[in-house]
């Protein structure tokens, strides 16, 4: 079990490295090597570490532990084929954790990041209305039931494509350098991560690796079904590369525009679900 956590974090960091590489190549830059994020995590773990004088020491350190813990739990939920409602609950917890990160340091940049995290939650989390569309067809929110449904009826990507697009946007919102990455955009330095350096940042990198792996793995399972593990990894990479294309050619939106765009998509999804409710027997 512990080996799953280590491998998922390492593969997630590798995916984030590929993400940076693809963005760089599209923007005609050489970019860092694909294993750069793994090196970053190791590098930060060897750096000097302390707690800023303005920080709430307990929250500053404790929130790092919570961040790793919730995404470790998310990995076990996905591997066990449990309910995607738990996954959504963990995603919501992550927004609270981002907020905690931002407030714990006492830095204005961190606080701005934390506040933006709450703002973006208002538009990201409603995107999970997509699970209603899935439930209309599968009659269950257990991942193993969703996978079993697809084994009989084919991938949900073809049955409810708008739901897949909405989930895709949720993942896009969590990737760095994306149009919705307002919580860590550069005008607020690194947002909620600004004051967490050294070992704390290394632990945050582990969290980011786990989070990236879990979200992409869940996406492939929910919309493409059970496949050989090597193919799942290949598809996760393909989905990530497509997301990197989006990130490379779109600027980071302002917080207002980010929330507006996501809210419009949520509205469209609600209309789609209303349509499904009308036509699906």
């Amino acid at each position, binding site marked *: 079990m512990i080996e799953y956590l280590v491998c998922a974090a390492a593969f997630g960091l590798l995916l984030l490295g590929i993400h940076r590489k693809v963005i760089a190549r599209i923007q005609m830059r050489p970019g860092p090597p694909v294993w750069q994020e793994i090196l970053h995590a190791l590098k930060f773990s060897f750096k000097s570490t302390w707690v800023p004088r303005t920080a709430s020491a307990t929250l500053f350190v404790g929130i790092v532990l919570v961040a790793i813990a919730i995404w470790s739990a998310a990995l076990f939920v996905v591997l066990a084929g449990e309910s995607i409602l738990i996954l959504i609950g963990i995603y919501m917890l992550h927004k609270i954790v981002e907020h905690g990160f931002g407030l714990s340091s006492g830095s204005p940049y961190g606080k701005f990041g934390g506040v933006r995290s709450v703002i973006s939650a208002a538009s990201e989390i409603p995107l999970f209305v997509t699970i209603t569309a899935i439930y209309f067809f599968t009659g269950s929110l257990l991942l193993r039931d969703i996978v079993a449904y697809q084994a009989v009826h084919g991938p949900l990507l073809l049955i409810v494509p708008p739901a897949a697009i909405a989930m895709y946007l949720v993942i896009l919102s969590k990737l760095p350098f994306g149009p919705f990455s307002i919580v860590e955009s550069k005008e607020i330095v690194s947002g909620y991560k600004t004051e967490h350096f*050294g070992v704390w940042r290394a632990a945050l990198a582990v969290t980011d690796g786990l989070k990236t792996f879990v979200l992409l793995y869940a996406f492939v399972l929910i919309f493409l079904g059970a496949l050989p593990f090597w193919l799942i990894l290949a598809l996760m990479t393909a989905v990530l590369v497509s997301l990197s294309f989006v990130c490379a050619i779109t600027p980071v939106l302002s917080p207002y525009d980010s929330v507006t765009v996501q809210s419009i998509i949520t509205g469209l999804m609600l209309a789609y679900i209303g349509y499904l409710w009308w036509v699906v027997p």
Partner: protein
Amino acid sequence: MAMKRKTVEYGLTASALIIVIAWIALTTGAIPLWAAEAVFVVAFPALVLTLGLWWRAGGGEEDFPFIGY
């Protein structure tokens, strides 16, 4: 952060031991899978942090470090 190597070692050893014990208990069937996962969820973050702190922690007898501009 003023944390001595010995203090971090205790945390690192404790978290590593907890993980090993849970893993052995799982493989021998002494505890169910969900219980082992719950232990890993709690102990893994502590292991990651204490491992990083252990690499850098001093023994308490070093010179004062340069602490930035």
